[in-house]
Structure formats: C-alpha cells, structure tokens
C-alpha cells in the first residue's frame, strides 16, 4: 500500500507544476496550510490559479505567494482588508480575480466533489456576479446557473490525521478545509499530529481518508498574518 505520510514538507509539494489549480483552506486566520504555502513558495511554482476564501493577510497565508507574484488568477470571496500584496498585483493587472459569493464558492467546489455539473441558485441574481451566466425562472424565482470549481490540488490544514488520512479539525478551523479536501484531484494536508491507523475513533472522523492523498506534519507556522 502506498504510504501517504511524508516526512519532508518540501517533498510533499515537489511535483506541483507551474499553472496548477490549487485550493487553499482557511478563514479568518484559522485553518490555513501555512507550512505548505511556505514550501510551495520555496519550490517556486508559478502561474498558479488559486481558489481561496481570501487573498492573504499581509505577508501571511496567500500573501506570501502574491508578494512573490506566483499567482496569476484567483477565485475568492473576500480578498480581505489586509490583502495588500494581492491588491497591489490586482491594481497592476498582474493577477486576475473572479469574485464569488462565499457560500456559492463552497457549493461550486462541492459540486465538483460530488460529480455534479452545475446548479441553479438565487444568490447573486441581478448583481455583478450574474453577468454572463445563464438565468432561468424556477418556482417563480429568478435563478442563475453556477458551474463546478475543480482543482489539481487542495492544500489543507487539519488537527490530526491517522496514517491512512482520516482527519479531525479543531474548533472553528475546519471552515473550507473539508470541502476542498473532497473537491481536488490530490489533497495534501498539514496536521498538528499524525497517529496510527485506528487511533481516531471512526465516529470522530470529519474527513474520511478516501479524500486525502498526502499527509505531512506541520512544523513552524501555526498562525500567520
């Protein structure tokens, strides 16, 4: 059986190519894969299409990759009041942005995870996010068609993994992580703690191992920005 646990955080991102589409978990400082982001920055992958709720907090979180100009397009909901590196690149037209309502961002990823080809929603009807989207009326309500968001990789953060990849999260640090884990072709998780198979009570598993492909112990950055 292929082992999912990597001891070297640089090895775990070594094959992430230029132009990769990558989902990054985290919200409000909690649940960001900051050590994976730092490893990706060291590797030098560029022209990334990033999918993330926000666009970094100063030099932290995705701020590091915007500072280094490694992201060419970002799909986000709330770039954030301290996303200064992103805003500079955006103003200079070095990065493009698709702004998506936060819950629709979740559902578009979940559609990709679930093998759905799209869905209709009332969210965003009559607003800028509806521009160019198919509209129809369902049950007397105006609705727009939203398409799945796929990714090559998900970079996520969890509290604990067993060696098979079953995950648990701490407090409000799950946020986007369980959804992204399901939506990407290859999910890489950094965790606080790795335990033997069977050491997580099956009733407590929050992301089942089928969605997790690589596991590495987070060392160093817990919260950034």
């Amino acid at each position: 059986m292929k082992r999912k646990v990597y001891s070297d955080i640089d090895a775990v991102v070594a094959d992430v190519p230029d132009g990769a589409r990558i989902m990054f978990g985290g919200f409000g400082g909690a649940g960001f894969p900051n050590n994976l982001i730092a490893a990706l920055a060291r590797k030098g992958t560029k022209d990334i299409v990033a999918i993330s709720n926000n666009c970094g907090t100063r030099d932290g979180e995705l701020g590091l990759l915007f500072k280094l100009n490694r992201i060419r397009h970002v799909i986000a909901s709330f770039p954030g009041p301290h996303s200064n590196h992103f805003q500079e690149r955006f103003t200079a037209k070095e990065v493009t942005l698709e702004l998506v309502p936060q819950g629709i961002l979740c559902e578009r990823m979940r559609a990709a995870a679930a093998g759905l080809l799209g869905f209709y929603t009332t969210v965003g009807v009559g607003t800028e996010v509806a521009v160019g989207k198919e509209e129809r009326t369902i049950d007397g309500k105006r609705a727009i068609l939203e398409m799945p968001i796929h990714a090559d990789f998900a970079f996520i953060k969890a509290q604990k993994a067993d060696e098979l990849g079953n995950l648990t999260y701490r407090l409000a640090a799950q946020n986007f992580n369980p959804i992204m884990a399901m939506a990407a072709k290859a999910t890489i998780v950094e965790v606080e703690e790795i335990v033997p198979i069977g050491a997580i009570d099956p009733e407590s598993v929050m992301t089942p191992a089928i969605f997790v492909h690589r596991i590495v112990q987070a060392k160093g950055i817990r919260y950034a920005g």
Partner: protein
Amino acid sequence: MPAKPRLTREQIAQRAARELPDGGYVNLGWGIPNLIAEYLPPGVTVYFHSENGILGMGPRAKPGEEDYDLVDAMKVPVTLVPGAAFFHQADAHLMTRGGHLDVAVLGGFQVSEKGDLANWKIPGAKGSGAIGGAMDIAAGTKTLIVCMEHTTKEGLPKIVRECTYPLTGLACVTTIVTDLAVIDVKPGGLMLREVAPHWAPAEVQALTGAKLSAPNDVQEMDLS
C-alpha cells in the same frame, strides 16, 4: 440652530437588538451589526451564527484567553455559549441560503424602496471589492435587517428609489434601522415604524430618497 442629535452607532445597535427573537438563530455582519450582541435585552437568549462554522458564539475572548482557532467572521477571537456547535463553511452557508436562520443583520450602503440591498462595493473605490457571505445571507435569510446611517457623510440619502451602488441582492431587506428611523419594507413600499427622539416623520422623509408611508401612530424610538 444646532443640528438635531441622531442616534450613535451604538444606539442603532441597541435599537436593532430589540428586533431579535428570544431563542433565535442570528447572523451579525460587519460594522454596526457587530455591536448588537452587547445590547440584547435582559431575558433574551440568541444563538449567534458565524459563517466560518459556529452556532452559539459568545462574547469576545478576554485578553490572554484568545484561541486563534476560535474566531468570528471578523477574525476576532470569541468564546462559546453552552450548546454551541461547529461545522464547515458549506453547512454554515446552507444555513444562510437555505432559510434556516431566523434573522440576519447586515450593514448597508444603500437600500431601495423594493428592499434591494447594496453593501459590498462603493463605485469608484480602489481595489477589488469583497463579497464574503453577504449575497448568500441576502438571498436566503427569512428576516434581513439592515443597520446603517440614514444619510452618507455628504448628507445624501442611503434609502433610495433605485440603488446606484453594485447590488448585493434584490428585494431581500425586511427592516431598516438607521440613526433616524425604523422602516419596514412592505409589498407596497417603505413604511415608517419609528422615528428617532425629537424627529418628526416629515423631517425623516426629507432625508429619504424614496416615499415613506407614515401611519398616524408612528412611535418615537425607546432607547431607555
């Protein structure tokens, strides 16, 4: 003649807090709404929802007791009340969009006479803008209260016939609480329910960009 006093941001929050139902599930947005939790009337219990996956948020964490895995949507370390629960972001917005919350309170730049809301981008402002959870909340929440100043810094009405700022949602606002009035959005238009102390309905109408229906029994806000 000095300008008549208007409500402070805290007083707007205090008045809006009285709209929250006992036992209700409530989401509070950025700005004035974030002040509301401080002003719940005695005996009223509300379960606060945060779109990063919390029901049952308590007050901000005390200095020295912060845990940065337990933050609200504004990134502020918070506490929990007994009975709280965590879940992921998709379920958090399933609650907003699916009509499971009782009330949401958002800030606003403009509200139209049909209850359209604009609250995420100022035309011509620098930068990218940011939507966050506001469009999901606007589309799905049963009762949407908007808290805002009645006029802009330049004195222009924020309650208008048609929004000119980028929209957040169509016909989504239930009630507007401002520093001058409480106004309900009804199928026939805007209905003035209360005015700020010492303000007359005609004076509020003069600072409003849409027609307000004013029944004879318009009350003065009780801020005691």
